[in-house]
């Protein structure tokens, strides 16, 4: 398929839009494109019939600078210039290809952006990813807008995902787009914007019940909502029962509850390791290759990891009872990881796209846990909208800051924070962004004081989730924790970030006490200025519930 029309979005004219509308007959399928006026721009809707692998909806002229986005939590979201080249180490493609892209067959040889792109003057993005995977192929001076259907056959006319073109600066278009997506996917965001503790960035897999109890004891008075045990407790990936380092899950959850926290647990529900009992007993529950053999989704823990086929009825039952059981044990916060595994290409029980398989899996978990808090990680972003309460929006953080490391989703505090900035606008709209854990310890870390401070300030000013990951018996930066507590006493904040295209980020973050400013002139070197708008009035709120159930909010100065 070849569309000769290339729209120039920087010198936009309405007539260009009419050129891409109408009926087309392509190889194997028919397509009708409809254009609708929308505040700030246009909505593009398509209707498809026939056998479709992928659809090119239109092309536009590539601007000098483009904000590109990877499909997954860990993947980079950043601004690229025309000379940008993907630099993904060849030896890692085999291990992490499906993590880097839902279409690794073309990802490594092309320049792709998933879901949307933005420039100083315009934005193009897709409002959903329910069946197709929307992406942008950047080729020389052109950008092609595509919907990948992975070889689906539509016997009847089928509505495509909706694409929008918005003509304004990114401070305006990015939050506006986020809201359009939320409305398209009927998001009812949780009012639980949590503070918590996680074991991962202190202990990694070297964590046990005794350490958990010690940190629970040391956490008294910290004001956490949730206390979450990370990867370390399970027998194997796929065998989600406690290993010999932990007592029963009921006991673990009860212990955490004793301290007044919501018990939280980590698992990778769509991942099945080659050494697991699940793998031995149910190879029929796994996504397969063309020869009918289980397909490796990725390699980690020095093991091959396979993907659960979320369309196999008995696998769905297993997934449901797994989460129902965890909930029965007392857990109400689920950090679900390596979620991309459910979206790898391959043969499944049902004839669905990888995107559909993924959302079916996520929906199964959501149904099983009810209104418990679900934090997604390693997850395809757009298909997760409406299913999770929180989402990791960057790579793993790390006790080090390496601005020269590879930008491919590897653990690194620098890239984790960069993504928190470049994906700021979806926070509080699609879900609560998790910029990943704060490490506030002064020992057992390579992070400098200023790196720790900037990480904390960005997380707070962007109004993200706050999860601390420290051995609390270590020397902790208490001053910084006090800043956290102070910020979190009062409700939601209104945030605006400008400078995303230049990389000089200016955050205006407003709350009841005023508008604080954080200006980052050089993220690599951690150069920033922070000004807190304190004002003269310190108003304290106390809440009283009367006998008739009515709530009284008292506001007093001083006391």
């Amino acid at each position, binding site marked *: 398929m070849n569309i000769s029309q290339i729209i120039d979005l920087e010198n936009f004219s309405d007539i260009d839009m009419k050129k891409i509308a109408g009926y087309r007959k392509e190889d194997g399928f028919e397509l009708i494109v409809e254009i609708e006026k929308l*505040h700030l721009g246009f909505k593009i809707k398509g209707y498809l019939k026939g056998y479709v692998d992928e659809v090119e909806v239109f092309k536009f002229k590539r601007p000098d600078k483009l904000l590109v986005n990877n499909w997954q939590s860990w993947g980079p979201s950043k601004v690229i210039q025309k000379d940008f080249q993907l630099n993904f180490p060849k030896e890692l493609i085999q291990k992490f290809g499906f993590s880097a892209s839902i279409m690794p067959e073309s990802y490594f040889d092309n320049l792709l952006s998933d879901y949307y792109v933005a420039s100083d003057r315009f934005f193009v993005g897709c409002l959903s990813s329910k069946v197709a995977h929307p992406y942008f192929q950047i080729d020389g001076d052109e950008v092609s807008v595509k919907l990948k259907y992975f070889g689906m056959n539509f016997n009847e006319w089928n509505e495509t995902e909706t694409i929008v073109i918005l003509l304004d600066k990114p401070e305006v278009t990015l939050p506006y787009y986020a809201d359009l997506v939320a409305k398209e996917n009927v998001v009812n965001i949780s009012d639980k914007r949590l503070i918590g503790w996680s074991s991962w960035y202190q202990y990694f897999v070297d964590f046990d019940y005794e350490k958990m109890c010690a940190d629970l004891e040391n956490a008294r008075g910290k004001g956490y909502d949730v206390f979450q045990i990370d990867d370390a407790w399970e027998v194997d990936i796929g065998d989600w029962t406690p290993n010999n380092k932990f007592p029963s899950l009921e006991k673990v959850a009860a212990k955490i509850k004793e301290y007044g926290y919501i018990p939280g647990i980590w698992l990778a529900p769509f991942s099945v390791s080659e050494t697991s009992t699940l793998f031995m007993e149910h190879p029929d529950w796994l996504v397969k290759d063309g020869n009918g053999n289980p397909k490796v989704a990725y390699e980690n823990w020095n093991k091959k990891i396979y993907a659960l086929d979320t369309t196999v009825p008995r696998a769905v039952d297993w997934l449901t009872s797994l989460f129902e059981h965890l909930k029965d044990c007392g857990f109400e916060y689920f950090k679900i990881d390596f979620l991309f595994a459910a979206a790898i290409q391959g043969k499944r029980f049902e004839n669905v796209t990888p995107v559909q398989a993924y959302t079916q899996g996520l929906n199964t978990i959501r149904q099983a846990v009810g209104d418990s808090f679900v934090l997604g990680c390693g997850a395809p972003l757009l298909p997760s909208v409406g299913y999770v309460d929180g989402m990791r929006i960057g790579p793993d953080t790390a006790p080090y800051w390496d601005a020269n490391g590879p930008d491919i989703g590897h653990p690194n505090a620098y890239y984790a924070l960069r993504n928190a900035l470049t994906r700021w606008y979806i926070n509080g709209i699609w879900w609560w962004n998790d910029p990943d854990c704060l490490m506030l310890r002064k020992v057992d870390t390579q992070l400098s004081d200023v790196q720790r401070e900037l990480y904390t300030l960005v997380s707070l000013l962007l109004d993200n989730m706050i999860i601390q990951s420290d051995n609390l018996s270590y020397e902790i930066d208490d001053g910084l924790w006090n800043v956290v507590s102070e910020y979190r006493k009062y409700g939601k904040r*209104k945030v605006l970030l400008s400078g995303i295209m230049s990389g000089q980020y200016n955050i205006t973050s407003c*709350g009841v006490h005023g508008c604080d400013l954080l200006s980052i002139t050089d993220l690599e070197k951690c150069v920033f200025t922070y000004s807190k708008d304190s004002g003269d009035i310190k108003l304290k709120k106390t809440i009283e519930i009367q006998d008739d159930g009515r709530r009284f909010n008292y506001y007093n100065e001083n006391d």
Partner: protein
Amino acid sequence: MMERRYNVLTDEWVMISAFTQQRPTNPTTTCPLCVGGDEFSRPYDLASFDNRFPSMKVDAPNVESENSLYKKARSNGKCEVVVYTVDHNSAMSLMPIHQIEKLIKMWTDRYLELSLQPTIKYVFIFENRGAEVGATLSHPHGQLYAFPFLPKRIEAKVQSLAKYYDEHGRCAICDVVENEVSIRERLVYENESFVALVPFYARWPYEVHVYPKRHVSSLVELNNSERNLLSKVLKVVTMKYDLLFQQSFPYMMMLFQSPVNDVRYEHAFHFHIEFNPVKRDKNKIKWMASVETGTWAFINPKLPEEAAAELRSVEVII
């Protein structure tokens, strides 16, 4: 009975709020907002509390539509009484600026806290002052309605402002402010960050709008020094009103902030406050009668430029 009903003639929601028990006409002469009255047993500074007779409640009963013609929905919003001060005999015009500044902070916190509820779509903060606009209590207070839907006039404002933005690439109120500050004939008061003016399009004889000079979509985005300057504007406008006819001046004061749980219009929606006073003269009332109510078309008997000149010439010292 507490529910919302949909009007197919006007595409608007009506809140039905009929209590089986009559609202008590105050049994005593004690003010319920004074310490020792029905609502407060001990001293306070400022407070916002759930209305005893709300037309919306967070836990409003579930309702089912009778059919597609008669649609119903839950009235799952919130109605709060917003008490400005413990001092019964005060008023916005009499309160210290410091107290108004605290009130602005309380309003900001209410807006932010209520916006955490995903079901809330609009937080409307207002004050009815004087018997002429139906206020039954003279204790300085306002109210707040957190709506689970976008009320009709708010929707009209959002749509017009968005349309202007699409046509001009700018916020309409930013343009109005720039224009009014340069021509000055409709200005009532101005400081570094705000203008108070009788708008070109005033519907009421002494209508005054307060616009921040900088584009913000809500109180939240004002910094502390701007909140201080806003408290001065509120003080000046209400003082001028009281001095205009040398009487406690009845008005409806309404805060228009951008919708909550929806950031789509923040660049186009410019936060503003409207004062809609009902007096056309010392002893004359401008009623919201058939034309205004039935058609939403207003006839303003007062030239806005003249009203502005009169209000401008009322001298106040703050």
